[in-house]
């Protein structure tokens, strides 16, 4: 049995205790809602996209340390980035979570930075859904704001 220290790295707890980009954005920002049917967690991602760039992002909702910190780190990583780069990052992240990727090749060279700390989640398969909740919701938001 892997120890919780693999899960609750300091950087993760830091983002949990002090979430970045927490809040909401008014319309026309796109709001997408996601939830984890297993634990009842829910999350809302607010995206302000213009000219193919994520100009601003915020999140709200309730969740465990993993889903909250993962989302917090995600917002830091994507803010100001071109949508295509964001998509590549999502693929890279889901690849780290060893989830199959139907939507394109993974660019292993993309740096995850702090997000790397979430790698330990893989040893706790039940928590993978927590870690990916924000990312999947982001993906939905990207799709709907492009369609």
């Amino acid at each position, binding site marked *: 049995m892997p120890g919780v220290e693999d899960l*609750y790295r300091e950087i993760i707890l830091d983002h949990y205790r002090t979430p970045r980009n927490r809040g909401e954005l008014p319309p026309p920002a796109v709001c997408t809602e996601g939830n984890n049917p297993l634990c009842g967690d829910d999350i809302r991602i607010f995206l302000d996209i213009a000219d193919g760039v994520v100009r601003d992002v915020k999140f709200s909702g309730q969740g465990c340390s993993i889903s909250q910190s993962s989302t917090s780190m995600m917002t830091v990583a994507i803010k100001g980035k071109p949508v295509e780069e964001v998509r590549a990052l999502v693929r890279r992240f889901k690849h780290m979570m060893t989830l199959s990727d139907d939507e394109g090749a993974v660019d292993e060279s993309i740096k995850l930075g702090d997000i790397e700390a979430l790698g330990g989640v893989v040893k706790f398969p039940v928590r993978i859904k927590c870690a990916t909740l924000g990312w999947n919701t982001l993906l939905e938001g990207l799709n709907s704001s492009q369609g």
Partner: protein
Amino acid sequence: MAGANTSLDAEKIRQDFPVVTSSINGKPMVYLDSANTSQKPVAVIDAMTAFMREGYAPINRSAYSLAAEATEKYEGARTKVAKFINAKSSREIVFTKNATEALNLIAYSWGRTNLKRGDVVVLTHMEHHANIVPWQMLQQEIGIELRWVPLTSDFQLDLSSLSNLLAGAKVFSFTSMSNVLGTINPVEKLCAAAHAVGALAIVDACQSVPHAPTDVQAWGADFTMFSSHKMCGPSGVGVLWGREALLEAMPPFLGGGNMISEVRLDGFKCAELPAKFEAGTPPITEVIGLGAAVDYLNGIGMANVRRHEVEMSSYVLENLTARFGDEITIHGPRNPELRGATFSFAFRGIHPHDLSQILDQTNVCVRAGHHCAKPLMKIIGANATARASFYLYNTKADADALANALDSASDIF
């Protein structure tokens, strides 16, 4: 420790349950998720293994001895279950795959035949999804109206407006015990209230049959259901009980082998009860395992099980409150006589998922989530709770282990 001054010897009973006495990484297992699904005693595992090694055969359809004996064991289990809940006859016992199928069977077969647009079905705010979604499906399909009995601030059903809610109702379907709050409902009284307005009384007994004596006739219920896997029996089998006249009048639910007396190209005739509702090959080994679970529970005595759990409740409530005071919020009644030993709680602001993960470090198994009761969660103002549930094999040592593990959770958060 437990044993000496409790109603049953939980220390001894533990020894019958291999998972309960197991350890991981040298630390003993503290299984506190029996409201979800219970562990299995050796007697049940052995009955299933012996059947599969020595007597496995089809039932009902073949004349050779191996099959005849399997049939007797299968039907013998039906008789045991009938007696266990004091059904009038074993014809009233239908084996399903789980309690959820039983509730759907009622909604599909009785519901579609007897309910029409605008008819009222009354539920309560503390129902499990299994006693909500089948009715919402009927609502979508034929437009029945759902009404909800609310809760009081001390986690009881608020019966003050029950007669208004029931006015004109066709069905009152409620749980005998909340799987989240632990609240035990006054089943007899609620059945009587349903009958007073001519409504059917359906009792979701998933959380009470494993934990206390059951007498469906004394209840005055019309239907009840429960799952083998929560009462020391195997997964894969549930029980529907219904009054014979009701079951008799209902159309079949699933069609296929065993549930027919005649099939022609132009139509079929149903078999008699209970075969009418048991289409296809049933969970043969599992029903026999459930029979062994009933024997096991009878050997201990359901009244003793109940008494043990009242004692466990007292201990848990006193202990957690004494130790953690306001840092713990228990969503449920304070009086051990009015509740089962199932405790949902919030602790020091730690998310239940994280809590459950950290408790797991010392093999303390508690469930975290919405417990398949999302409407109730919303009403008690939580997205999720942690839940520790105790059964006949849990001791005060388990309660202590829970408290110790909780205390150390703050080391991380």
